[in-house]
């Protein structure tokens, strides 16, 4: 019943919660529970900016079971406005429209459904930014 682990992570996944260091300002996503990797400073939870740009991406053709009906889909390596880096699926964009450097914004979408329980897991995806 992996649903429980998904439920536990829902807040940081839905709201793009990361960790920010009180000492050097470094940010981390997913959030860390312990200390800053760079300066050892204390970390606090923070809502990250929902805009960023695409550093790199791939189009996945061979997917794990949970995503097998979504292929081909695009996953990006994204840098948010405050410098935080993360991986997330791209949506509302076709593979041939994707460009490194494009502006993106976060949006809450369905990630996958568990076949047995029918439980739907939501999370953040990124789409081309408007305006």
């Amino acid at each position, binding site marked *: 019943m992996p649903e429980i682990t998904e439920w536990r992570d829902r807040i940081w996944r839905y709201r793009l919660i990361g960790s920010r260091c009180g000492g050097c300002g470094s940010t981390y996503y997913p959030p860390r529970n312990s200390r800053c990797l760079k300066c050892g400073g204390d970390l606090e939870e923070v809502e990250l900016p929902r805009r960023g740009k695409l550093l790199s991406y791939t189009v*996945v053709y061979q997917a*794990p*079971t949970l995503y*097998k009906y*979504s292929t081909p889909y695009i996953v990006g390596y994204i840098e948010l406005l405050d410098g935080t880096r993360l*991986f997330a699926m791209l949506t509302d964009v076709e593979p041939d429209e994707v460009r490194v450097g494009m502006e993106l914004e976060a949006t809450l979408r369905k990630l996958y459904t568990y076949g047995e329980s029918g439980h739907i897991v939501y999370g953040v995806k990124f789409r081309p930014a408007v305006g």
Partner: protein
Amino acid sequence: MEGIVAVGYGLVRVGEYWAKDIVSLAADAASMALDMAKQPSVDALYVGSALSGALGIQGNLAIHVADELGFADGLAVNISAGGASSGLAVLSGIDRLLSGSAEYVLVGGVEKVSDNLPSDVLEAILIDIDRRVLKYSGLTDAGLAAIMARLYMEEYGVSKEKITSLSVLDHENGVNNPYAMFRRAVSLDMAMSAPLVADPLTIFDVAPYGDGAAFLVLTTKEKALEEGLDYMEFLGYGVARNRVPISHRSNLLSFDASAEAASVALSRANISIDSLRFVELFDNFSITGVLALEALGLSGSGSGADDVWSGKFNLDRQVSVDIMGGLKARGHPIGATGAYQLCEAFMRFEEAPRREYGLVHMMSGFDDQAIVFVVGGGGSA
């Protein structure tokens, strides 16, 4: 680690073993290693396997392998640490010898992926590497490698062809490896135009998962000489870790753990990188092999793919890479792959001048934990 040697190796050809269960597969490889070592009395067994528990095949494999081999007693340790599983099994066996608690240990790994659907194997792998980063983003391991490849191409202005030339080299070298999953050369054209796994990586940029088992018998050099056994000597090793989750790294293209592990291993072995005759990369993807080359110090940053492309690491050159086909041609039985690499190094020393040195690089995830062994030939001949 002065004076630790391998005196036997055993392995099965990587592939699909529909009719064999995981325990028999391990026992086949282990028996071959024990035969070569003249059937010593083994004090401890260390088995690495990344997914046997996660795939529901059999947990706590080591005790089942021990029983199958007829070891009535003695320690049996099961290590599950992704691609580093069998490397850590070897390391733990070395520790046991060095602690004076054992005279002979049997170490290695086994993996059985053909018992499950490929998409279920992929799912198990992403949970094994980093559930939070991969599961919620839809990334596969190949997808992450693809993102690295595109970054590399952008950052250094390198063509995809040059990255993929490592796979071509692997296939060229794999022809001579009787235990390789694929024993045929491929052209760069074929590799480039093959079906995409994760754009821009094709199936020829991705080491194929396969069933496999490989084991080594380790003992002290003193004991090997006493018994008149040929051996491969462990001259030094290093272990290091990079940041997980991988999104917390400041530079995806810098395999810091591999760099640190290699530097420590070479320094402990008191051997310079120029003295190496061959290097076995943990190239689960063409791009990770290239990044490893750079981290190990064989190529400068951004010039690894260029160097491979230019033939710098071919078999006839001073330092050859992936002499038995690497992960691409030999195949990648995840938790057993590190043990395969060491068996292949041993095979090399059996046939080549014994005063050679080789470096074997292993890792779990994407440089998450790296292990590097420096090995040399030896024995009575």
